[in-house]
């Protein structure tokens, strides 16, 4: 039932982007979000938007999924854009009423912030639509590895992340079962005052936590029986492979940056 959760928002289409190394995808998408802040003009935003659109199309994921990523934020976006339009000043004044005014700068800034929203959301959506959560967790582990030298328990954190991911669907099922059992005993969820709703959660959450602790106990025993004695020095079954395509992707991103700077400083 909850395979949806397990996959995160992953949509398997096996596109070029899907096949990139998760480390490359993670780093490049974060990097892209950073360079979005360099955009400051029509040309720069247009260039980044064109690139983002290209990436979106090459994922072969239906556009509807990107819209799903934007939809929950629509109100915030509109709110921010409207504030930006009404409260910035400068340039030609088209309309004014008290402290509110619509100015040339306001409109331009409104459009820019709108673009920034869309670009950030779309690029991070590309990451989650084309990469399984587990892969991202692997990538994070690989990228944080140098921190192990600073005594950050990278291996343990990575193991925690992977075990948490592994148990989310199991506990999700469990929560459903507990909810059914308590509803059969007359609990009514989602009705009544806030206090009443909060109270109705206690018969669900306590058994859920207890179940989690019991599972932790069992799992710890099972892991120890299988020879687990700490993260240090374990060999790894799941390896990440850096391919030529990943290097190419990095070069492409470099090109995008160069053009961006070109547009920013030459124009």
């Amino acid at each position, binding site marked *: 039932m909850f395979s949806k959760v*397990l996959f995160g928002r992953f949509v398997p289409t096996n596109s070029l982007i899907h096949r990139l190394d998760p480390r490359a995808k993670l780093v490049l998408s974060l990097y892209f979000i950073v360079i979005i802040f360099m955009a400051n003009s029509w040309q720069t935003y247009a260039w980044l938007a064109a690139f983002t659109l290209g990436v979106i199309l090459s994922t072969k994921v239906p556009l509807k999924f990107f819209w799903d990523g934007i939809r929950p934020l629509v109100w915030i976006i509109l709110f921010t854009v409207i504030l930006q339009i009404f409260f910035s000043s400068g340039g030609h004044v088209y309309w004014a009423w008290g402290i509110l005014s619509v100015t040339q700068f306001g409109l331009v800034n409104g459009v820019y912030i709108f673009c920034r929203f869309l670009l950030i959301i779309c690029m991070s959506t590309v990451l989650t639509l084309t990469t399984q959560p587990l892969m991202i967790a692997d990538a994070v582990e690989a990228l944080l590895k140098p921190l192990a030298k600073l005594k950050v328990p990278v291996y343990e954190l990575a193991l925690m992340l992977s075990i948490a991911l*592994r148990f989310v669907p199991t506990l999700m099922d469990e929560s459903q079962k507990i909810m059914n059992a308590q509803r059969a005993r007359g609990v009514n969820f989602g009705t009544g005052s806030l206090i009443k709703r909060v109270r109705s959660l206690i018969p669900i959450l306590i058994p859920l936590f207890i179940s989690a602790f019991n599972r932790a106990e*069992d799992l710890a025993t099972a*892991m120890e029986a*299988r020879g687990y004695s700490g993260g240090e020095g374990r060999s790894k079954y*799941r390896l990440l492979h850096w391919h030529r395509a990943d290097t190419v992707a990095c070069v492409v991103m470099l090109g995008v940056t160069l053009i961006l700077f070109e547009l920013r400083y030459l124009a």
Partner: protein
Amino acid sequence: MHKMITVQDAVYSYSDDEHLVLKNITFDVERGEWVSIVGHNGSGKSTMAKAIDGLLKLTSGAIEIDGTALAEDTVWKIREKIGFVFQNPDNQFVGATVADDVAFGLENRHVSHDEMVAKVDEALHLVHMEAFADREPAGLSGGQKQRVALAGVIAMRPEIVILDEATSMLDPEGRQEIMQLMRELKQTYDFTVLTITHDIDETAFADRILLIDDGELVAAGTPEQVLTNGTDLVDRGLELPYAERLLNQLNLLHIDVPQQYMTNDQVVKWLCQKLNSSK
């Protein structure tokens, strides 16, 4: 030659209180033997099994595995010889996917990547789960998860396999599958097997049965010796095998039944002979 497992005067209690969960248990298991430990809920079976794997430390007594005494400094070596499958299929699945889970034990032993891939493939093949290598546990049935657990054990080439009620959360089909699979694997690898159960049917393949009641070892012997009326299985929370129950019932109806232990097939044969000879 030494025994595979020897347990000498094992005593255990969980807290400091007087309640002993194991009371002076002594037994041994030969190399290649299949031994079943039976007993009611809470009789101490799991505690005994965990002690054998060094997962908990006896209050007093000694355990020796393949000639090595279990102690602080030998416990990891000893665990390498023992594969353990637990009751709840969900709570022992460590990896994010089937293949990852089978590899978990190998990773702990620093096995190289290439060797690991080969071993994982082979183990999955042996439990007929190769088609599921990349699947996540959420989509598997309980029986399939237990087969993965078995694959994880086999990939390590243990000398001893312990199944602690490994089938008790499965449906009957799943149970039979796991027991049958275990039998095939034992024929291939000849490990020593310890199964823990309160289902008498699951002792069908055992060479020897140990009966535990409230922490005491109250009977040990071949199925013929233990699974008869004489050992008060019913008083100890268990059940007699079906054939034995039928014979008892016939006896109550004043039919003379043979005194020795019989399997289902033997009972059928005996009854049919009796029917035909009385024609």
